[in-house]
C-alpha cells in the first residue's frame, strides 16, 4: 500500500459516519501501525499470507502489545497498585472500583480488556459484608459499567466451578440486564459444580445465550489451575496471555494439495503448519525484542503480567471444507458430521496438526513449554464459504449425539480452546434440566468447551461473542452501534449464514411421535 492509499484509508475512517469516537480512534491507531512494514518473513510465508492460506486476523503490522492479556487481578487486589495509586480494597465497593480502574489500563488487540478475571472468586471475600439484596444492587451497577465502559463483547468474565453467593447473583443480574458484555464462561467441574448451579446457568442461557461452559478438570490438566477463558473461548495462562493468534485456513491448504487425500497430512499439512509458525515467530519476536512492552508496562513491573506466563495461539479453521475437498479428490462425496470416513479424516488432520505444533519450538512461550497452543479458531466477520474452527458446517449439523460424536474427539487437541455451538430447540426453555443433562453428557465424553444457543433467541452467538438481533438490523441499515463487536457480528451473521444453524433434539411440540425417518 502506497502513502496515497494510506491517506485515503485514513480519510475514510475520519469521515465514516457509523463509527463512535472510540471506534474511530482504535481504527486510526491500527491504520497508523499499518504504515510500517510488517515483521520480515520468507517470500513463501508472505505469499501464504497474501493468498489467504494463513491469516493474521488483522493484528497490525507492528505488534506492540500482546494480543490477549490476563492480568493477575487477585494479586492486584491483594497488593494494591503503585501505578494507579490505589491501596488494597477492603470493601465490596472499593474492590469493584479498583477492578474498573485496572481494566481501564489493560491492553489487548481490541483496545479493551479481553478478560475481567474470575469475578466470583475475586469478589466473594468482599461480599460477606452485604445482604443478598445489597449484593445484587452493587453487582448490577458493576455489570452496567462493564458494558458501558468496555463496549466490546470479547471482554470476558469467568465464574465457577464452585458455588457461591457472587456466582448466583452474577447469573441473576446477567439475566436481568440482558447485555452482551461481559461475555461469560462458567467453569464446570462435575465433582464440584452442583447441578443446581448448572440449572441456574441454563436458565441464563435460555435468556441471554450465556454462559459458555468449559471443562474445568480438562483445562487444569492442560494449563494448570491458573487459567482463564477470554475473548472467543481462548483459554490461556493467568498472569500472562497470548502474544499473537495466527490461523491456518485448512480449506485453502486442501485446495493447494495435489494427489489423494491420504497424502495430505504427510505432504501438505506440515508445510502449511511451518508457514503459519514462521509468521507467529516473526510477530512474537517483534513484540518481545523490538518493543518496550515487557520492560515498561506497569502490569509487568507490578507483577500482574510476566513474560514467562505467555504463550502463542496457533489457530485452525475450515476443517469441514478441507475434509470434503480432500475426499472429493478421491472421488468421494462425503460430509464431515454425517459420514464416518469424513470424521476419521478430520480427526487425523487435527491430531497431526497438534503433533506438528507440539514439535515446533516457539520463542517466548515458556508458559506452554516453548511451544504454541493449538486453538480451533471460531471465525472472522469476513469469512465466507469456510466453516469456523473445526465445527460441522452451518446448516449441516446432524442430530445431537451424532454431532457431538463428530466433534468431541477434536477437543483434547485444543488446549487453547475450541467451540462447537449446540443450538437447542426453544422447547428446552420449559425443561432446562434437559440442557443440564446434555451439558453433563458432553463434558463426560471429553468436550472441552460446550456452547449452547436457543433457537430464535434475542441474542445470536457469532464466533464466541454475542450480538443482539436488533444491532444486526441497525448495522444492516447503515446505523452506528455502541459495541464495536456488533459491527463484526453483523458481518458474520450474513456471511456465515448463522441463522441457518440447525436446532437440535427437535421433537415436535407436545406428544408428537411422528416417525422422523
Amino acid at each position, binding site marked *: 500500500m502506497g502513502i496515497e492509499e494510506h491517506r485515503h484509508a485514513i480519510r475514510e475512517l475520519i469521515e465514516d459516519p457509523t463509527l463512535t469516537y472510540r471506534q474511530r480512534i482504535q481504527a486510526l491507531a491500527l491504520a497508523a501501525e499499518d504504515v510500517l512494514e510488517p515483521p520480515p518473513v520468507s517470500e513463501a510465508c508472505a505469499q501464504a499470507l497474501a493468498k489467504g492460506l494463513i491469516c493474521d486476523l488483522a493484528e497490525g503490522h507492528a505488534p506492540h502489545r500482546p494480543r490477549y492479556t490476563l492480568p493477575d487481578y487477585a494479586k492486584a487486589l491483594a497488593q494494591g497498585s503503585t501505578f494507579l495509586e490505589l491501596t488494597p480494597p477492603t470493601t465490596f465497593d472499593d474492590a469493584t472500583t479498583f477492578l474498573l480502574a485496572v481494566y481501564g489500563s489493560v491492553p489487548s488487540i481490541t483496545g479493551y480488556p479481553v478478560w475481567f478475571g474470575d469475578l466470583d472468586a475475586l469478589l466473594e471475600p468482599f461480599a460477606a459484608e452485604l445482604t443478598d439484596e445489597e449484593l445484587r444492587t452493587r453487582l448490577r451497577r458493576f455489570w452496567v459499567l462493564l458494558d458501558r465502559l468496555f463496549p466490546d463483547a470479547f471482554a470476558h468474565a469467568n465464574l465457577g466451578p464452585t458455588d457461591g453467593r457472587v456466582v448466583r447473583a452474577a447469573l441473576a443480574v446477567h439475566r436481568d440486564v440482558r447485555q452482551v458484555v461481559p461475555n461469560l464462561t462458567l467453569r464446570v467441574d462435575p465433582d464440584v459444580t452442583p447441578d443446581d448451579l448448572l440449572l441456574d446457568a441454563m436458565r441464563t442461557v435460555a435468556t441471554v445465550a450465556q454462559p459458555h461452559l468449559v471443562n474445568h478438570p480438562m483445562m487444569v490438566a492442560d494449563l494448570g489451575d491458573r487459567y482463564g477463558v477470554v475473548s472467543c473461548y481462548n483459554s490461556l495462562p493467568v498472569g500472562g496471555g497470548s502474544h499473537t493468534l495466527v490461523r491456518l485456513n485448512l480449506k485453502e491448504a486442501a485446495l493447494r494439495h495435489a494427489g489423494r487425500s491420504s497424502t495430505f497430512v504427510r505432504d501438505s499439512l506440515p508445510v502449511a503448519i511451518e508457514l503459519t509458525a514462521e509468521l507467529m515467530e516473526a510477530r512474537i519476536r517483534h513484540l518481545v525484542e523490538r518493543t518496550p512492552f515487557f520492560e515498561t508496562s506497569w502490569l509487568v513491573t507490578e507483577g500482574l503480567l510476566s513474560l514467562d506466563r505467555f504463550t502463542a495461539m496457533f489457530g485452525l479453521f475450515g476443517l469441514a471444507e478441507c475434509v470434503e475437498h480432500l475426499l472429493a479428490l478421491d472421488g468421494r462425496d462425503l460430509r464431515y458430521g454425517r459420514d464416518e470416513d469424513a470424521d476419521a479424516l478430520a480427526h487425523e488432520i487435527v491430531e497431526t496438526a497438534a503433533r506438528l505444533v507440539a514439535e515446533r519450538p516457539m520463542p517466548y512461550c515458556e508458559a506452554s513449554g516453548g511451544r504454541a497452543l493449538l486453538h480451533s479458531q471460531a471465525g472472522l466477520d469476513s469469512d465466507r464459504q469456510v466453516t469456523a474452527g473445526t465445527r460441522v458446517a452451518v446448516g449441516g449439523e446432524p442430530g445431537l449425539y451424532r454431532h457431538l460424536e463428530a466433534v468431541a474427539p477434536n477437543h483434547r487437541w485444543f488446549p487453547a480452546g475450541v467451540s462447537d455451538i449446540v443450538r437447542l430447540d426453544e*422447547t428446552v426453555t*420449559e*425443561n432446562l434440566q*434437559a440442557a443440564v443433562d446434555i451439558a453433563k453428557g458432553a463434558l463426560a465424553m471429553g468436550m472441552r468447551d460446550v456452547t449452547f444457543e436457543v433457537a430464535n433467541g434475542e441474542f445470536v452467538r457469532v464466533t464466541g461473542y454475542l450480538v443482539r438481533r436488533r444491532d444486526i438490523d441497525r448495522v444492516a441499515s447503515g446505523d452506528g452501534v455502541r459495541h464495536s463487536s456488533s459491527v463484526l457480528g453483523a458481518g458474520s451473521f450474513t456471511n456465515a449464514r448463522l441463522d441457518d444453524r440447525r436446532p437440535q433434539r427437535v421433537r415436535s411440540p407436545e*406428544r408428537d411421535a411422528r416417525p422422523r425417518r
Partner: protein
Amino acid sequence: MRALVADVVDASCVDGPGNRYVVFLQGCSFRCVTCHNPHTISPHPTPTSRWVEVDDLAADIARRAPFLSGVTVSGGEATLQWEAVRALFQALAADPATALLTRLVDSNGDADPEVWEALAPWMHGAMIDLKALDPVVHRELTGCSNGRVLCSIRQLTAMDRLTEVRLLIVPGVNDDAVQVAATARWLAALDPVPPVVVQGFRHEGTRPAARRYRPATTGLLEDVAARLVAGGLPASLVRIRGIVGAEPAPAAEVPVQAGA
C-alpha cells in the same frame, strides 16, 4: 422379549423432566379424535412400526445414558405391552450404566390395577392423561369410558407413583366452567395432590376429523389454569405446557423412591 415399537426418540425435552430417551409403543386402546399420532393407534404391525428386542432397546439406552435424566415409555398406549415395559425397566434397573435413570410411563390411564401393580416396583412414576372427567365427554373424545382412568389415577396416587396428570384442553368440549371446576375439585381431593399440566389441543398431526375442533389459544390455557387454581388446586402444582418464550419454569422434581 420383544416390543412392537412405533418410534424411538433418543433425546427429548418434552416427555418428562430432563433429557429423556422415549420409546413409543405401537397400539392404543382409545380412539381419540384429537390424537396427534393416529398411526400409533393400531395394535397390529404397520408399515411404520417394528418389532424390537427389549435387550436391544436397553443397550441403546445405555449408550446414551450419560446424556439422560431418564427413560419414558409412551405410545400408542404403553400399558398395552406392559410385560415388555416391565422387562425393559427391569433390564435398565439391573445394568449399572442405566440404574440411575428415572423410568416413567406416559399413559392414557386405561389399564387394569394388576398392570400398575406389576409395573410399580420398577417404575418411578406415570404421567396420566385425563381427557375429561365427565364420562359422556370422555366417550365423545376417546370412544371409551374413563372408569379405569380415574381408578388408575387414584391407585397411582396411593402407590406414590403419579408423576403428573395432563389435561388436554379442547375448546368447546372440555373447557367449560362446570367441567373445569369439577376436575379441579376431583384432583384436589387426591392425597397427595398431583402436579397438573394444562396442554392445548392443536391440529398438527391429527386426522381430518379433528378439524371440527378449534385449537386452544394461550389465553384459554391461562384461563383454564386460573380456574383450576380457583377450584382448589394449589397454584404451585398447576403448569401450562407449550408456551414458548415465557420465563423458564423451574424443573419438575421426579419422585425417586422406586424400588429395585
